[in-house]
């Protein structure tokens, strides 16, 4: 029997604010254990949380970017459970009235598009981190991460393959990077993902019993874990067994998921309204201001690149896959209004160089205006396109302007007819046979002679001028 998976993703994103969710401690990654802490994020007796306004604003921006309806009220709940890395033994989160609900994300899949609905985006604080002594039986706790502002983005179970899950995460990450609200670095824990997966007969509508999969630390791991779960659940049903609702952990070394706890052992979080944070109204005008202030998002930007700048779908897609690259591209176009040519250079030689050196476009020494300058030099005929390819590498290496490199190295094309006529005559004299072939109608014989002149000038001759001079001289011989 053919099955299909039904997947919902819960993504936790750490917001890139300067200070934590409810105190003034730094959110900087790293630092010796327990150095980025204060009585508030350590949950000391008597202390109280104060909401970081910046975290709220960033959360609203994300909610708006995924098309959610933002609530007119901000309300927090306590989620109670005991764990040594949770200093208050409850987490401040949102429950019955989340910041926002009912959004969507369009993902690209199999050359088409699919809309994944987003159930809710809400705020919460992060817990600390346990460090288990290697070879010993002690555990240590580092509270530097405690109280970091998190967003939980919960999708509807609209995802029907591990590939879709992968694309959803990729596109969500792209969106968050465009908004500049998070690093989205899974290694640093600033983006984490749990997946709910059940299966059903292909084309069916109901929902099967789901498993929750945790502990996946890369997008690839999410994909692999979901592939494994799909297989496992399919085999289970084929064998006539019942799937049990449980939480499973992904074991990346073995490439399998293992059961962690069943529904029966699940927590009762005893949610109730956080009495230390009085609910407050969100001003509609403030939300509208944030909406107006949103940057152009990847989808819209790609469409504009195609429509207004006449780029191909492929080019537009590649350029908008990274906000910095797209910004860089647009800045170049401001100085040099031939988008297709800029796009070719960026996607070709420039990105080749950056990839090889593992640099970002923003971190490179080649500034957009300088790249535009180089392309103008080609257009003016001062240098050839071939020469430009060498010059751009030097620009990337040194950060110098094209014109400086051209004059320093004497790379300007020779367009002085007097000088070129001398070389042309030499070439004709040295290659009488070829000259005759041309006169007898072999047009491409001329290319050989052009090549000879280029050689004599060490490539500095302007090929178009040489071409013209050779034709003139040969026709006079006829």
């Amino acid at each position, binding site marked *: 029997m053919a099955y299909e998976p039904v997947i919902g993703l819960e993504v936790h994103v750490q917001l890139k604010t300067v200070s934590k969710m409810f105190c003034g401690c730094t959110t900087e990654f790293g630092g010796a254990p327990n150095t980025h802490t204060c009585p508030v994020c350590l*949950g000391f007796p008597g202390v109280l949380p*104060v909401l970081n306004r910046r975290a709220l604003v960033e959360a609203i921006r994300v909610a708006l970017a995924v098309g959610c309806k933002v609530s007119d009220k901000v309300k927090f709940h306590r989620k109670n459970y005991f764990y040594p890395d949770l200093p208050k033994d409850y987490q401040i989160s949102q429950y019955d009235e989340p910041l926002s609900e009912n959004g969507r994300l369009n993902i690209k899949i199999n050359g088409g598009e699919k809309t994944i609905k987003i159930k809710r985006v809400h705020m919460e604080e992060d817990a600390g981190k346990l460090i288990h002594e290697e070879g010993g039986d002690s555990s240590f706790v580092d509270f530097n991460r405690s109280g970091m502002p998190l967003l939980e983005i919960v999708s509807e179970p609209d995802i029907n393959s591990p590939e879709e899950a992968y694309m959803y995460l990729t596109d969500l990450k792209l969106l968050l990077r465009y908004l500049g609200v998070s690093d989205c670095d899974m290694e640093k824990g600033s983006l984490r993902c749990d997946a709910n997966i059940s299966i059903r007969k292909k084309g069916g509508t109901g929902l099967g019993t789901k498993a929750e999969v945790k502990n996946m630390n890369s997008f690839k791991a999410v994909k692999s874990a979901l592939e494994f779960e799909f297989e496992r659940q399919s085999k289970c049903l084929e064998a006539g067994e019942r799937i049990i609702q449980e939480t499973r952990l992904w074991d990346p070394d073995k490439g399998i998921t293992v059961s962690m706890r069943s529904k029966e052992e699940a927590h*009762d979080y*005893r949610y*109730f309204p956080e*009495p230390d*944070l009085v609910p407050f109204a969100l001003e509609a005008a403030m939300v509208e201001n944030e909406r107006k202030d949103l940057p152009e998002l990847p989808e819209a930007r790609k469409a504009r690149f195609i429509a207004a700048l006449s780029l191909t779908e492929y080019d537009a897609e590649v350029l908008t896959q990274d906000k910095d690259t797209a910004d860089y591209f647009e800045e170049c176009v401001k100085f040099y209004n031939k988008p297709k040519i800029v796009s070719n250079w960026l996607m070709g030689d420039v990105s080749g160089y950056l990839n090889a050196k593992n640099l970002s476009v923003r971190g490179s020494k080649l500034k957009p205006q300088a790249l535009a300058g180089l392309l103008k030099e080609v257009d003016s005929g001062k240098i050839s396109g071939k020469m430009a390819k060498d010059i751009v590498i030097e620009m990337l290496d040194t950060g110098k302007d094209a014109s400086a490199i051209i004059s320093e190295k004497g790379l300007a094309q020779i367009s002085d007819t007097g000088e070129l006529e001398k070389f042309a005559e030499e070439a004709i004299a040295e290659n009488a046979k070829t000259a005759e072939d041309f006169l007898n109608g072999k047009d491409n014989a001329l290319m050989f002679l052009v090549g000879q002149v280029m050689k004599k000038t060490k490539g500095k001759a302007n090929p178009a001028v040489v071409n013209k001079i050779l034709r003139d001289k040969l026709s006079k011989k006829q």
Partner: protein
Amino acid sequence: MDNLYSLTAGELLGLLDKKTIKPEEIIESVYSRAQSVDKKIKGYLNLDREKALSRAKSLPSSGKLKGIPVAVKDNICVEGELTTCASKILRGFKPPYNATVIEKLKSEGAVIFGKTNMDEFAFGSSCENSSYFPTLNPWDTARIPGGSSGGSAAVVSADEAVMAIGSDTGGSIRQPASLCGVVGMKPTYGRVSRYGLIAFASSLDQIGPLTKDIKDAALLLGVIAGFDEKDSTSVNVPVPDYASYLKNDVKGVKIGIPKEYFVEGMDKEVEASVREAIALLKGKGAQIVDVSLPHTEYAVAVYYILATAEASSNLARFDGVQYGYRCEDPANLLDMYERTRGEGFGAEAKRRIILGTYVLSSGYYDAYYLKAQKVRMLIKNDFEQVFKSGCDCILTPTSPTPAFKVGERSADPLSMYLSDIFTISVNLAGVPALSMPCGFTKSGLPIGMQLIGNFFEEGKIFNAAYAYESNTDWHKRSPKL
């Protein structure tokens, strides 16, 4: 001067102003008084003469409380000083920060004088639930001083402190003030910052003053009140000059008497004293009207659902991981949690944690917590209606009985819970209320009355209270020790 310890803060500040005494002399006087009487009262958990003296010597150049020793309930954090909520589970805990009220007191020149005993985590109405020792009533040491701020009330009553700070979640300042014959006030919720108050029930707790007279109460509240950006529940409204309300004039002041607070079965002597107080105010020109607070009968039930729910969550952090008590040689994490909390918390704390956990658990939340929240709104509405009808204050007894005997109710939690029957509604509504002496029983036990005001109208309470106090001398009596 010999008996500095018996003076009010107002009187002492007058002497300090005239430079007839020095702050160190006050400290010495109050300290030696405590040395001689606290053996009988046991109001203090911690009192250090040298520390108090050195504080008195390094006071700011001016301040509204300059040189006045103020005792502090043990659930309010003082930097570097033991703050244990009278619980074993916070054994050895010294907060690395000051509560906002402590900062305010210090900046006005008050001398933080010692930590006072309390019911563990403020759970109780008798001060018998301390994990150290019970505090006793200065008027009769066979009796309880009331709770949970029993230590703070007792030391003020016994002249072992000039003023004290307590906390009130369901009557924990007013009830012991009443049973010890002193003035105690719970301000409007949000009037005084809770930052640094170790929470019992966050939506009900409020810090307030315990003093020898109304003038001192107005003075101390003026110092500790005000908006605090560290407390999201504190309210940003200006603090008036409470001294300007201390007028011996209640002509036209409308005082509501709620019929639900004068019911069959209440102590006859208490009722008689409160009735006399009403008559006195009426004689001075106050307009006495009958009012109704119809949801009063649900207050105790609602309170024990909401307060325990919040407490169960607030007390979760005492898990043996970071500070305070941890059991010996735990076998594993679960064992550490279970034994740390099993050994660290007293019986009443456990009772409340279990009750609070139960009312929040899935399947019961709607039936208990949510319903209690709804009834809480009705109780709040009752008060709003009365104040909307033009009442300036509501007058009731503070406690249904005078101080009861040590051990008399400790085996029966429900009878203990009823000790706060007249004070609890005020916390549920969030309005301010004050308890002050209004008489004595034949056997010489203090009786207190409660004046309840509208939100942020502590001033009107002070006015009525001061007018009453100016025409009586209950507050001038002292227990014989």
